[in-house]
C-alpha cells in the first residue's frame, strides 16, 4: 500500500517536474532564426556551388582549362570548354558548365584545381523555375558578377 502510494506520488511528481521545465522554456527567448527576414552569414568554409575566382590582374578567370575538375568530379557535372587563343600558348576558357542538378557539393573539384581557379560560393538561396535554371555557365556568372 505504501509502495503503491509512493509510486503514484513519484509518478505525479515527475509529471510536474516536466511541466516546470516546459514553462520555464516558455518564458525564455526564442532561438530560431526567422529565415527569410534574417539571413545568417555563411562560414568561410561553407561549400556552396562552385564559382570561378577572379584574377586580380586581368579581371577575368584563372582557369587554365586543364580539365582536372572535370575528371575529379564523381557526378560528371562539370564541363570545361576551352578555345585555342591565337598567339597564346595556353587555352582560354570559353565556357564552364556546371550542372548543379547533379552536383553533390563534395568539393573534390576545388581541391583538384591546380590554378585555384574555382572556389565555393556562399550562395545558398537557390531557387529556380526549371531544371535548366540549374545548369550554370560559371564564366557568364563571373562576368555578370561585377567587382
Amino acid at each position, binding site marked *: 500500500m505504501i509502495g503503491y502510494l509512493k509510486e503514484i506520488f513519484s509518478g505525479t511528481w515527475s*509529471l510536474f517536474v516536466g511541466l516546470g521545465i516546459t514553462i520555464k522554456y516558455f518564458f525564455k527567448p526564442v532561438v530560431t532564426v526567422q529565415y527569410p527576414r534574417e539571413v545568417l552569414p555563411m562560414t568561410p568554409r561553407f561549400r556552396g556551388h562552385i564559382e570561378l575566382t577572379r584574377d586580380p590582374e586581368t579581371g577575368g578567370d584563372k582557369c587554365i582549362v586543364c580539365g582536372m575538375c572535370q575528371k575529379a568530379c*564523381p557526378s560528371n557535372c562539370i564541363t570545361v570548354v576551352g578555345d585555342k587563343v591565337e598567339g597564346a600558348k595556353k587555352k582560354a576558357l570559353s565556357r564552364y558548365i556546371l550542372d548543379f542538378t547533379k552536383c553533390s557539393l563534395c568539393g573534390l573539384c576545388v581541391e583538384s584545381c591546380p590554378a585555384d581557379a574555382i572556389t565555393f560560393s556562399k550562395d545558398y538561396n537557390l531557387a529556380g523555375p526549371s531544371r535548366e535554371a540549374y545548369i550554370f555557365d560559371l564564366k557568364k556568372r563571373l562576368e555578370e558578377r561585377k567587382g
Partner: protein
Amino acid sequence: MSAFAQTQLKETFVINLGPQHPATHGVLRVKLVMDGEYIVEAEPVLGYIHRMHEKMGENRTWAQFMPNTGRMDYLHALAYNHGYVTVVERAAGIEVPERAEYIRVITAELNRISSHLLWFGAFVLDLGGFTPLLYAFDDREQILDLLESVTGSRLTYSYFRFGGVYNDIDENFVPGALAFIKRLRERLPMYHALVTKNVILRTRLEDIGFITPEMCRKYGATGPVARGSGINFDVRKHEPYSVYPEFNFDIPVYPKGDSMARYMVRMDEIEQSMRIVEQAIAKLPDGPVMAPKAPKILKPAKGDYYHAVETARGSFGIRVVSDGTNTPYRLKLRSPTFSNLSLFGEACQGMLLPDALALMGSLDLVIPEIDR
C-alpha cells in the same frame, strides 16, 4: 508462423506501415499481420531508396567514392568517412599524421553526439512527445555550426581525405567545442528530468521490447542495440582504430534488453563522447593534417581489406577488394542498421502496435543506410 501466432485466433488482418508513415522516419515499409492491436508477424520491406552505392563505388575512383559514404548514414556521416578512409589507407599503406587522427576523432565524436541527440528527439516524437525533439535540435544545431565551420557542410561532410583531413580546424573550433560541451552538460539533466524520469515514458519503455543477447548474436546486432542487451561490444574498444586507445572512456552497457536499456545506452554515450572530445582536445598535438606523401592517384595493392568503425548505430564494416587499379574492384558496405532491423520481425511478435513502434524507434533506423 511463430508459436504466438498459432495460439491466437486467426482473426488477423494486414496493415501496411509505410512506406509513408510518420513513425518509420523515411521510406521503410513494414507489413504487419495483426490480431487486433497485437502484432502476429512483421516483415520489413526494404529498398525504397536503394541507390546501389556498392556499384557506384566500382565505377569511380577511390577518392570519388568519398562523398557517397557520408550519404548513407547522413546522421553520423563522419564515422562513415572515417571507416572508408581508414580502410583505403590500410590498403594503400598511407600513414596519417597524428593531428589529423585527433581531428578525425573529435569531429566524429561530435557528430555522434549530434546523431544521438537527433535520435533522442525523434524517438520521443515516436512516443508522442514533440517538445524534446526541438530542444534536442537546439543543441544539435550548435554541433552542426561547429562542424560547418570546419568542414564546410552541415550534414554530408566528406571531410576526411586519404592521409588526413581536408582542412585544419580553425581557431574558433576548440573554444566552441568546449563551450558546447559545457552547455550540453548543463542540458542533459534537463533532458533526464523532462523525458527519462517521466512516468509516462517509463511505462512505455520499461520491460517492453526485449531483445535477448542470443538474438543479437544470431542477427548480428551491434552498437547500442547490442549494448542494451548486455553485450559489451564497441568497436572503439574491441578492435581499436585511429587514436581511440589514447582515451579513457567507458562503454555503457545495460543488461536488461528492453527499450529503456537502449535508450539509456545512447544517453550515456553522449556523455562518454563528450569525455572523448575533451580528452582529445586536451591532447591535440600540433603538426600537419595531411600526410606529406599521400599520392594523388591512389592504387592500393591487390587483395581485400576489411575495416570496421563504431558509428552511432553500431559496427559499420567496409570490405574493399582492390585489383591494383585506381578504382575499387568491389566495395562491400556492412551497415549496422541493416542487421539491427533484421531482428525487428522476431522481436516484435506478440507486441502491441505502439510498443512495436517504440521498439522500432529504439533501434535508431536510418533508412538510406539500410537500403544503401
